[in-house]
């Protein structure tokens, strides 16, 4: 997976795509995984066997990137018995990435359309053609609720929440002191494995990187991204957030918190809180989620 960062940058730069989740996996049995994956294609697997053979020999590591497509262009594709629906927008991105990063073919004149001349068909990226296939793939990866897992249910709320948070019965718009916030930070410095530690914003790797110029946040990402941190975090995006105008920082989307007796635990918005504190902002606008409120 030598070009993963470049591929992610291409996806990030697509205006109509929003990366929802990125997860890396090591696959035990690559052949089985490939057959399972292509089990949802309209083309029977025996027809694809020769085409996919190269995958059985590669390192059994995958990176699954789930995106929200705001520009679906599903059109009939492939004639005859194997006809299917395919999103032309995703297909174009897939072709662009394959042209850039598929291994070069030894024969410079080799060409199988739609790829350019000299490009092999050992694809670095595979993409679903329509939403049902995403549901299928998620289930293969072990997310038993399939597409519902990523869908969340933000449309019933007047703000956007990450898919992994349950919709609360009660939520309160309020402004609170950043001092009262705690962020759940992953820590594997002990031999006991990875644990979540509640830290003040001023003690997070996020804030320390901004305020003291340390490499803590870079190291934190390197250690946990795509495994335990599956949202699309990047150092560049974080730095860009910090460089925004103070008025834009004050107008950040509200962070989401939960009251834990003597502090507020951040459920979404550690980066925004760290940037705000770095700009000496003392209070932050938030939405407090309450899951078991008796009122």
């Amino acid at each position, binding site marked *: 997976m030598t070009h993963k960062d470049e591929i992610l940058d291409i996806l990030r730069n697509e205006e109509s795509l929003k990366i929802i989740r990125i997860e890396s996996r090591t696959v035990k049995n690559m052949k089985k995984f490939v057959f399972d994956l292509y089990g949802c294609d309209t083309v029977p697997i025996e027809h694809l066997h020769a085409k996919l053979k190269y995958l059985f020999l590669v390192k059994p590591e995958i990176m699954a990137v789930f995106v929200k497509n705001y520009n679906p262009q599903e059109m009939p594709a492939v004639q005859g018995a194997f006809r299917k629906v395919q999103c032309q927008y995703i297909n174009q991105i897939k072709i662009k990435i394959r042209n850039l990063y598929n291994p070069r073919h030894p024969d410079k004149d080799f060409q199988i359309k739609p790829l350019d001349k000299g490009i092999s068909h050992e694809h670095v990226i595979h993409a679903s053609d329509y939403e049902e296939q995403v549901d299928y793939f998620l289930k293969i990866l072990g997310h038993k609720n399939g597409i519902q897992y990523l869908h969340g249910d933000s*449309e*019933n*709320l*007047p*703000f956007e929440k990450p898919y992994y948070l349950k*919709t609360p*019965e*009660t*939520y*309160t*718009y*309020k*402004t609170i002191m950043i001092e009262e916030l705690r962020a759940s930070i992953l820590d594997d410095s002990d031999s006991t494995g990875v644990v979540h530690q509640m830290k003040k914003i001023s003690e997070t790797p996020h804030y320390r990187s901004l305020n003291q110029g340390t490499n803590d946040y870079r190291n934190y990402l390197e250690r946990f991204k795509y495994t335990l941190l599956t949202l699309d975090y990047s150092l560049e995006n974080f730095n860009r957030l910090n460089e925004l105008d103070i008025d834009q920082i004050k107008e950040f989307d509200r962070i989401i918190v939960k009251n834990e007796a003597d502090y507020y635990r951040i459920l979404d918005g550690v980066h925004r809180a760290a940037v705000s504190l770095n700009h000496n902002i003392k209070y932050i*606008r938030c939405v407090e989620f309450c899951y078991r*409120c008796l*009122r």
Partner: protein
Amino acid sequence: MPQIDLVKLLCEIEDYVLIKRSTIFPDYSSGFDVDLLVMDKNTAVQKVVDFYESNFSSKGELRVINKEYHCHIDFLINDKLDIRVDLIHNFDFFTKFSVKNGFFIKIFKDRQILDLENGSVHIPAPEDELTIRYFEYLEYFDRYPNKIKHLDYICDVNDKSLKKQFFENTHMFINFKRQEWKRGVNISQKPESMRMALNNIYVNSKYIISASVRKLASRTIKLYRHLRG
């Protein structure tokens, strides 16, 4: 002292009908509630949140409580309720009767404009207002005796044609739910299997033994008291 300009808030919501309006509206006292029928709950919540962000966020908090059939939105100042906006998007919460969907549509179709000093608000047609108050009385009177105020309100109406319209309205849109016996039904049942028959023997034997023990104990106590006395 009202902290919220209710007329401005209602103008923001647009697709609503203000029901059970108080006599002092748009004034209110702290802890007061405003009931609104809304076409789309999520859109209405979004509009209230927008109003909060631009008019109230520096003064206090906004708490949204989503229930199955209602949505309460509380404007809070120093943790005290200033006003509650109750958004109702259907009448499915009534338990003693059901209201036909057509009534909700009729309320919106026939809503009227009430002009006030600083704007106007949507209110139901008079016969719909009476019907809604009657529903409230029917549903809650046994639990909340103060709901008699709705019946009083209806009885105080002198306009005979309005009363006639109200009766027609109510008859047209209400379905009473049949009252059903919800506790256990004590009918001896013929066993349907060996297992059930054995179970019946066990249950009956247990009853006979425990009843006999209770009877014997009670007689012994009586005899003891008799002998001592």
